[in-house]
């Protein structure tokens, strides 16, 4: 499978006796929108941190963008984008300064940064706001800008950790439109969310329960398998089985 951008084989992380992530195996295909779901405490964040090269696994194997999660964590960091609801942009820097900063961090050339910045400003129709502090932008704009910044260096995969929490319903949909476009341009999307309607927008979805991947398939297939009308129902059926109660 040369088109796999993430491969995980029995990937495990334990903290003492606690198996936060328990032998998860899966593959994510290039250009796919992959939904990574699970209840609080199911192990999503721990798994994501391993895939982003931020935390070493206890056992098992995994590669991200062709790089090994034990040996090549720095290479992984250069080749992925990351965005979360909590931390994304510097509030006290302007729109333009944020892009300059992130471009610099990823070692992009001045010329690239200049062209890319102009491109993003026009895509988001915020040319007039280029010198505005990020903290004074409405939340919906911030999230869209944060996503653009996360893929500024044109990574092969971007990890989105609850990107749309608290965003209004219209902005939430505009955000997903951007995700679709990025995926169409070949960027793989790895996304977590608590909104179950957003799970429907993914090509495939995995659901983690107590550290294990309990289900992985296209939303339509999952609904048939679990005889559910919506992904919300599928999620509730699986997540209710959880015995563990921790974040």
């Amino acid at each position, binding site marked *: 499978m040369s088109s796999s951008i993430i491969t995980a084989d029995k990937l495990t992380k334990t903290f003492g006796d606690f198996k936060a992530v328990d032998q998860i195996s899966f593959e994510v295909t290039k250009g796919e929108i992959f939904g990574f779901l*699970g*209840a*609080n*405490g199911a192990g999503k964040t721990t798994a994501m941190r391993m895939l982003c090269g931020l935390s070493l696994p206890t056992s098992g194997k995994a590669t991200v963008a062709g790089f090994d999660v034990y040996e090549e964590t720095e290479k992984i960091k250069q080749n992925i984008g990351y965005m979360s609801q909590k931390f994304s942009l510097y509030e006290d820097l302007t729109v333009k300064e944020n892009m300059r900063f992130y471009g610099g961090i990823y070692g992009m050339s001045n010329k690239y940064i200049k062209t890319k910045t102009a491109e993003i400003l026009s895509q988001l129709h915020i040319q007039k706001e280029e010198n505005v502090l990020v903290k004074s932008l*409405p*939340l*919906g704009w911030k999230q869209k800008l944060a996503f653009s910044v996360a893929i500024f260096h044109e990574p092969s995969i971007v990890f989105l950790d*609850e990107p749309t*929490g*608290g*965003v*209004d*319903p*219209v*902005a939430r*949909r505009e955000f*997903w439109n951007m995700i*679709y476009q990025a995926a*169409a341009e070949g960027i793989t999307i790895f996304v977590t969310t*608590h909104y*179950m*309607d957003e799970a*429907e*927008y993914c090509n495939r979805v995995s659901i983690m329960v107590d550290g294990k991947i309990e289900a992985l398939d296209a*939303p*339509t297939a999952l609904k048939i398998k679990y005889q559910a009308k*919506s*992904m*919300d129902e599928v*999620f*509730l059926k699986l*997540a*209710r089985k*959880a015995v563990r*109660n*921790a*974040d």
Partner: protein
Amino acid sequence: MQSIVVKNISKSYGKKGEIAALHDISFEVETGSLFGIIGPDGAGKTTLFRILTTLLLADKGTATVEGMDVVLSFKEIRKRIGYMPGKFSLYPDLSVEENLNFFATIFNTSIEENYDLIKDIYVQIEPFKKRKAGKLSGGMKQKLALSCALIHRPEVLFLDEPTTGVDAVSRKEFWEMLKGLKAQGITILVSTPYMDEASLCDKVALIQKGQILTINTPQGIVDEFEYPLWAAKSANMLQLLNNLKNLPYIKDVYPFGEYHHIVLQSAEGVELLKKYVASQTAEKIEILKVVPNIEDCFIGFMNK
């Protein structure tokens, strides 16, 4: 009887008051009811909660809680309400039990005296009562915070975004707890950015950019939706969305889970839509009439 009465409240921030947080907000909450303030981040929900819990002064307007003015009678109000802020605000280096004891003592009561009120919630975290609050999981922190807000048996409970960032299962459980508290006669004002939670309230106010869009029962809001609403899906959803956007009789179309929702300009649009679907032989499109939910209504108000 009205437990909370808000009249023309406005509040701005900034040196010159240039950032308007609330603009001329008015609503009433009936005693013993569960009232939801539904809106995205930045809508003004927290500002409103801080004014009603006597922690912030409004620029204009008045508000009463249990008949008492939030400015004149702030001390008395504080004794009779429970407040759970959106941000976890208990003492992280005190244990679960110590936190609860602390709040009980502050209000001149004891855990034993009001145990029956918090029992259903507290038993779930009691096995961890020696653990420091800062070391609890998100779900457990939420239960402890709710227990602390209830320990003095308040008449009105203010919950600011209690379910934000919480998974679908825990959110359902939390709303079950609220039903139980309502049954004990406590008036509850709760805010949330999750539109689907509106249906669990007796009455809701939809709020956006500091202004109330509408106040009604959940069913009433759905009944207010004045356009025919249909849903469509096909093998290529992105293409379908772009095609539908260009049809003149469609007022709005947006993704909605498995389907796209189509808001038609008028009833005549239904036949036109059906004809369009029949004419698209290259790609099979499935359509069906749907009942709007709160999110459809919210989008409708935002486009007004």
